[in-house]
């Protein structure tokens, strides 16, 4: 397993989240662990596509596979999702806070003119 920088990992998580099928898969895994077959069942896509989506999720570190004999169980790993959430939260706070200040400054500028 390669050692990834936080930036690379964030990229992979954002990539994983950029697809609606994968987001639906994560929402499904948030309710309970399941097999690859169960995870792919609700989607009208081929088995290779399902496997590909799962590989993207595993690479991003948001899904972990455990193997017992022939049974592969997939589980959600929430921590990297929280990193992405933190990135979004923090930048949203930045923009919302700044735009609040801009409102005040625009009022001042127009009053002074």
């Amino acid at each position, binding site marked *: 397993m390669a050692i990834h920088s936080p930036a690379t990992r964030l990229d992979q998580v954002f990539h994983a989240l950029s697809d*609606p099928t994968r987001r639906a898969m*994560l929402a499904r895994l948030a309710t309970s662990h399941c097999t690859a077959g169960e995870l792919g069942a609700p989607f009208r896509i081929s088995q290779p596509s399902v496997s590909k989506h799962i590989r993207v999720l595993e690479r991003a570190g948001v899904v972990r596979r455990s193997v017992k004999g022939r049974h592969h169980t997939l589980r959600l790993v929430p921590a990297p999702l929280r990193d992405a959430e933190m990135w979004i939260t923090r*930048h949203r706070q930045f*923009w919302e806070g700044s735009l609040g200040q801009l409102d005040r400054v625009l009022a001042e500028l127009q009053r002074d003119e």
Partner: protein
Amino acid sequence: MSDPATDAFGLSCSRWFDAPATLVFRAFTEPALLERWFCPSPDVGVRVVVCEPRPKGRYRFVFSFPDGRTVPVVGEYHTVIPATRLAFTWTWEPPDPWAGTETFVTVDFVERNGGTEVHIRHERFATIEMKAPHDGGWRGTLQALEEELRRHHDGRELDPGRRGNVDDLTT
């Protein structure tokens, strides 16, 4: 929101201002005006070191936080259409926890109801293949996912220690 062409994932926010688009645009592109507002709260200072609002022009802003830390953000302007659109890259420098991660900001200025609506999208491009059709509903989905995660983990992993970073820009 996401841009279907890139299938990026990020955040968006909007706000209406009681001011003409030409003035709001100036506030985003003139150093003296930027230094009066471009920071998340009044106790954070911002110094505009470089600001060249033209395609391929650079910018460098340095934020000073009440605890004495200074954190620069740098980038390059891609699109500069007066009173209409600004697009630029956005990269934090150390000591920011996301230093070195290039992100992309698009600001649209839309005149509406006698004022100007500003729409901001801030995204980290998805870097790999992937050009799936887009439902545009990532925000709702992420929220639903967050709620699921909270329910199933009793908030254990949302401990205040991890929240610390979130406050970097606002305290």
